[in-house]
């Protein structure tokens, strides 16, 4: 056995089987269990190390050749695989409670497999193609076959596809920069093209207009999954670039640009969120603001880049899954996520509303919740490097706090004498409850993430060393 077969081929094939051969009722369970098993295997079995089980020796080799190129997952990738498949399992188990069914789990598994391939492919530059293919697989999830595609979906497809040529071409230019580091014009061209590619991929200001559009047009659960999975792998891909090219890593201009772009995303995301009257769009803008935090973390002049980035990545998966699940439950009841439609729902859906508010608060960096420790670490670094940028980050987070206050006010604005009742199913209550408890645990005891993130800097040869 080898690692790419286990963590790329198997989930892809399982996704295919679920899509065509499994009843939708069982797909969340099967998909979730497979993801969990893959995370467990990555946690238990070290890659490239022989294990003796009785008389049987097991060794998972790290690479496989495919069309003359190598796909390689080594021991350093194990913690990342555990995190990715563990969080994916959470999303798949939540499918049942959200009301989404067969295709989400099947295509979701295939997407995660493709994205895992993007971190395994060598040269790593080709990951841009795999990211684009994963983005295309998301389309059938975003647009049910009975619904006309909206403008958000088309924009999403255009932006993700545009990113790929920019990144592939910049890779070629970067090789030229390495060969002749003194050529300033080539360096500027390479940096600009690379920046444009990642701006399209991550939805850097102003290229994120598809996100709030999608939150209105498509299922919140599917869009939430998309907002978790694609930026996660894009950030890892971007860190790969920083690690690979010394001049990028050491360039003060790039660092300043990243900090400026990140602050702009956080501030604009937060301020726009505070003005919305649609709870789905609020989540979209909150996700934009959080992506801005990733961009900021990548722009830090510090050896803590990797730690802070991964510290941000893990709670994001939990926050978005809880938030998206809560929105799905509300949307099934209210049909629209406008303030006017969801007013007073705290009385009829108390657990859902509580989970939504907690996830939202966590994204604003509220103490005791999962988002607080990584933000604190980021604020500390930013305070040392640029208090102005830190001010704009606080402006953005204040915007998110205003948005959560308005949302809470709308939810509790029920008619007089409306009775409190629990209308969620036990599956929904369990999933939301577990998610909310998880938010508190990660907030109060962030050190439980230590075993997962302690070895993550080993993913990169230079970054964070």
């Amino acid at each position: 056995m080898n690692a790419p077969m286990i963590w790329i081929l198997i989930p892809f094939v399982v996704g295919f089987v679920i899509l065509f051969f499994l009843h939708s009722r069982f797909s969340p369970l099967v998909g979730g269990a497979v993801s969990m098993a893959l995370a467990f295997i990555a946690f238990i079995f070290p890659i490239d190390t022989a294990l003796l089980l009785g008389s049987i020796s097991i060794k998972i080799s790290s690479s496989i050749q495919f069309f003359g190129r190598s796909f390689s997952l080594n021991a350093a990738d194990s913690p990342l695989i555990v995190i990715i498949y563990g969080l994916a399992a959470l999303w798949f188990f939540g499918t049942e409670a959200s009301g989404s069914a067969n295709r989400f789990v099947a295509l979701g598994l295939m997407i995660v497999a493709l994205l895992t391939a993007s971190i395994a492919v060598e040269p790593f530059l080709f990951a841009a193609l795999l990211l684009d293919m994963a983005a295309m697989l998301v389309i059938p999830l975003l647009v049910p076959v009975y619904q006309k595609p909206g403008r958000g979906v088309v924009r999403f497809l255009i932006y993700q596809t545009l990113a790929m040529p920019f990144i592939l071409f910049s890779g070629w230019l970067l090789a030229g920069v390495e060969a002749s580091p003194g050529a300033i014009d080539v360096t500027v061209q390479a940096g600009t093209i690379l920046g444009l590619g990642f701006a399209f991929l991550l939805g850097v200001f102003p290229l994120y207009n598809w996100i709030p559009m999608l939150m209105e047009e498509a299922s919140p659960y599917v869009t939430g999954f998309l907002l978790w999975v694609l930026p996660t792998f894009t950030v890892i891909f971007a860190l790969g670039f920083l690690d690979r090219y010394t001049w990028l890593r050491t360039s003060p201009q790039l660092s300043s640009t990243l900090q400026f772009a990140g602050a702009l995303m956080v501030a604009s995301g937060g301020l726009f969120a505070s003005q919305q009257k649609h709870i789905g769009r609020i989540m979209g803008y909150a996700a934009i603001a959080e992506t801005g935090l990733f961009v900021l973390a990548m722009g830090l002049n510090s050896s803590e880049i990797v730690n802070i980035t991964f510290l941000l990545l893990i709670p994001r998966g939990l926050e978005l899954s809880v938030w998206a699940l809560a929105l799905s439950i509300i949307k099934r009841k209210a049909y629209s996520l406008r303030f006017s439609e969801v007013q007073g729902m705290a009385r009829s859906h108390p657990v859902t509303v509580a989970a939504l508010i907690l996830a939202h608060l966590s994204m604003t960096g509220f103490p005791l919740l999962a988002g607080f420790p990584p933000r604190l670490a980021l604020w500390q670094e930013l305070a040392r490097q640029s208090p102005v940028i830190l001010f704009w980050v606080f402006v953005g987070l204040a915007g998110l706090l205003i948005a959560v206050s308005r949302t809470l006010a709308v939810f509790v604005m029920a008619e007089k004498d409306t009775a409190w009742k629990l209308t969620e199913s036990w599956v929904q209550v369990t999933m939301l409850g577990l998610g909310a408890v998880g938010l508190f645990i990660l907030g109060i005891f962030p050190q439980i993430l230590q075993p997962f993130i302690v070895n993550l800097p080993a993913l990169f040869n230079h970054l964070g060393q």
Partner: protein
Amino acid sequence: MTTDIISWIAVVLMLATSTAILINRDWRLSLGALAVQYAAAFWLVTRHLPFVMGSAKLITGWMVVAALGMTRLGLSSAESEKEESFLPGGQWFRVILMFVVALVSVGATPRIESAIPGLGWQVVAGSLLLIGAGIVHLGMTSDTLNAIFGLLTLLTGFEIVYAGIESSILVTGLLAVTNLGLGIVGSYLLVAGAYPLEMEDEI
């Protein structure tokens, strides 16, 4: 010498087909132009890639054209979407835009050829034309089918120039899958919403 002449003919064909895709409203004509565009692109790609790898791009392109054509054929004309654009929609406006793209391509080709020696003027010119046409197309439309045409045109332009600098089989294969994926996604988006709710299978 003959090869160069054929390459220039391919460039002219690209200009003609990309202009045709941009200015006409008949999807049949656009698909026909796209098929010819792929044939012209095939010629330029084989200047740097082996014939077999170039053929893969051509066949993939034609498969995309076939998929989009079959899907669009199955939809009634009433289901075709009206073009929504805030820009002037006249054909002459689009022709002028293509003229600008052609001018930019003519101006930029020598510079890019000197920056990436060995690509060939025809390859650079053809690639720039298609990339420019694709960007103009994407900027002018919000219609799904036209957006797919724009993306396919842009990607073809990129593939022509990228073939000159990267000859990996894996990249060629993945780019082919990306093109095919765009065709399939485009077909899916065309079909979505065209059938009544009872035919729907759950998400």
